[in-house]
């Protein structure tokens, strides 16, 4: 049988429909499509795809089980390496990870590994009603700071070994970026909630509304009898560009814009937490965060949404599928442009004019790509005299984050690098005894799968350290 050169398409909501609702965009494979897509896998001996996955999911093995219709078996195979397949199948940048190494990809489109992973996880969630059983306690207690993918994974792995685990979360809901950042239309919150419920069934205590460093310090956790602490506190404070006009009303960080919409449910018809809806919106940046903010703005009712990015389409760091979806939905990509000033309304005759201080536009300068830098990325250079004004009422800055200094400032002897990331060894151990860390708090903004991987590594190291006691 000749190999189908193309991945099986995953059905999606039509662009003109989904641009106005918050339901999931991609609808997932049916069982038939999954089996047909699995049939494209060559079951390569050297398994190059596995090398591309940061946690080395047993890809050919789980795909082989799909071929035979053993979907639950496929799930169990993935579970050996990943604890959040329903999430990673949806949000991993597969084109630069597992699928980038797929043998099939040399001549054709690679196997749709992410789509298959998602299918298998959704199948399991729908059909497997067996609640996990809490194992016999082993008497050790571990505290986890933050309930993002790194913290949840570390908690789950330890709980399965009988550790008494408490997860402390600063916000009122567990899930980290998975609940406040990534929108519903890309990752339904019910999936995250189910993961958290699963942990609770394993005996994990999830304590919202506790800010470590404020409500309790890491030293106090040890005093209370926790024997090890894992810090998975995430990427931190949003960056701004430091250009004039960023304080005008209508300028948001992507974190604020997405938090208002996702966590605080400002997308609802009569929300309790406000957000600027409608009008013309410019989102500055080119990563997943920028795509999510732009597509959220569209769904909140914006007339027109721009992505303003200083490099070109090729350099966009966002997942390919999100960029494609954004284009289909009508997001206007203003590439090779950089904002230099945000303009605001000011009525000198009436200082009480309610429109005073609201955004009226964003001045940008056109860019061209110069010589490649040390990393091989071509540096964008401004083209003199090319300034123009985009007519917008809302600006969302999605240009990265800097580490939150709270935990470092309240934990003596915890060392951070010159970017503020917590320093760890290959086991996730920090400069403080029995304090481990992982995820964005260590690496800066990265991916769900790498955060999850870091949680796993630390759980293994914590288990080795404590069971040797």
């Amino acid at each position: 049988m000749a190999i189908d050169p193309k991945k099986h398409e995953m059905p999606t909501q039509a662009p003109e429909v989904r641009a106005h609702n918050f339901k999931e965009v991609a609808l997932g494979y049916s069982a038939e499509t999954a089996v047909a897509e699995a049939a494209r896998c060559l079951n390569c001996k050297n398994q190059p795809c596995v090398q591309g996955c940061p946690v080395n999911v047993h890809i050919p093995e789980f795909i082989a089980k799909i071929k035979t219709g053993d979907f639950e078996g496929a799930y169990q195979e993935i579970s050996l390496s990943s604890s959040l397949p329903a999430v990673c199948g949806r949000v991993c940048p597969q084109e630069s990870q597992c699928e980038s190494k797929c043998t099939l990809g040399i001549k054709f489109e690679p196997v749709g590994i992410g789509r298959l992973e998602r299918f298998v996880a959704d199948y399991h969630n729908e059909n497997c009603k067996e609640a996990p059983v809490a194992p016999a306690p082993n008497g050790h207690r571990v505290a986890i700071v933050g309930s993002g993918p790194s913290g949840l994974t570390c908690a789950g792995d330890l709980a399965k070994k009988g550790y008494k685990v408490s997860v402390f979360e600063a916000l009122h809901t567990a899930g980290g970026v998975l609940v406040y950042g990534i929108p519903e239309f890309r990752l339904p919150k019910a999936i995250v909630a189910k993961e958290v419920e699963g942990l609770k069934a394993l005996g994990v205590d999830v304590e919202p509304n506790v800010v470590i460093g404020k409500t309790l310090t890491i030293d106090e956790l040890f005093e209370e009898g926790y024997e090890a602490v894992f810090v998975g506190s995430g990427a931190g404070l949003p960056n701004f560009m430091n250009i004039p006009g960023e304080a005008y009303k209508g300028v948001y960080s992507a974190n604020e814009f997405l938090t208002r919409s996702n966590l605080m449910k400002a997308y609802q018809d009569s929300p309790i937490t406000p957000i600027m809806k409608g009008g013309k919106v410019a989102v500055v940046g080119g990563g997943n965060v920028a795509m999510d903010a732009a597509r959220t703005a569209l769904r909140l009712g914006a007339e027109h949404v721009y992505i303003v990015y200083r490099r070109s389409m090729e350099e966009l760091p966002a997942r390919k599928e999100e960029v494609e979806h954004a284009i289909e939905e009508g997001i206007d990509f203003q590439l090779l442009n950089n904002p230099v000033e945000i303009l605001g309304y000011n009525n000198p005759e009436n200082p009480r004019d309610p429109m005073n201080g609201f955004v009226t536009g964003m001045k940008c300068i056109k860019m061209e790509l110069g010589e490649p830098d040390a990393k091989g990325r071509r540096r964008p250079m401004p083209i003199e005299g090319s300034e123009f004004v985009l007519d917008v009422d809302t600006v969302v800055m999605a240009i990265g984050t800097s580490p939150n200094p709270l935990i470092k400032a309240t934990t003596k002897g915890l060392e951070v690098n010159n970017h503020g990331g917590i320093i760890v060894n290959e086991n996730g151990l920090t400069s403080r005894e029995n304090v481990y860390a992982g995820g964005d708090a260590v690496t800066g903004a990265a991916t769900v799968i790498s955060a999850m991987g870091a949680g796993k590594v630390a759980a293994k190291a914590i288990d080795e350290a404590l069971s040797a006691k």
Partner: protein
Amino acid sequence: MYKIVRRRELNPTVTQLEIEAPLVAKKAQPGQFIILRVDEDGERIPLTVAGTNPEEGTVKIIFQIVGGTTNLLNHKMEGDSLHDFVGPLGVATHIEGLKKVCIVGGGVGCAIAMPIAQALHAQGCHVTSIIGFRSQDLLILEDEFKACSDTLHVMTDDGSYGRHGNVTVPLKEMLEAGETFDEVITIGPLIMMKFVVLTCKPFNVPCTVSMNPIMIDGTGMCGGCRLTLNQDGKKVTKFACVDGPDFNGYEVDFDEAMSRGRMYADFERHAYEETCNLFNK
């Protein structure tokens, strides 16, 4: 869930609640705040810790009914519970080493200033307090301030109680008469704090202000609470929830903060009317 242990109405628009939150009660220092949600799906609002009872595990908050969420909160009675209550957040007010301080509070800002005045008094500092209100029926915490101040000035805008005039009047008189303070600490409406700073300026008295921008997470994640400081001619962005809420009054860009505070004015008016309708049914 966080239970309301005691409730007291201080005036028709200001209510005091004591809430069971043992971890916060153990930790909170004067100048710090909490964030609460009344119900599931509710808005997160910041309120200052107005006092604690660590033995009982309770935290006191004093709030003014200004909009939807504070209105909702005011309809919670003793025995009811709040869905979320997190803290203590922000940096505590720096009071170490202060020997002579003037506290200037305006309206519900007096509730925020009170624990600072009490802490200063307890460390033996000489405390002069000036508290101001629009009129007598809005007066709060007079007895509490009397108990922790060496001198107390009560001002009303309309002269219905205490002295007629705003809080800068006695401050200016004292400074002009040669009175000195290690620091003036002021908390109240932005416009009032702006004028307190202007009053202090010619006399070179250090002046700390407590900023209250709109917040969401309160942990330094969203950037919504940002404000601009002018430090040595350079504009610096700070986050009130993690760097503040106290700032050097001479550095704060008040006009910008006032403008940003009104971002959702229309929306808020609407939300307030809706909760009022809800409770009038």
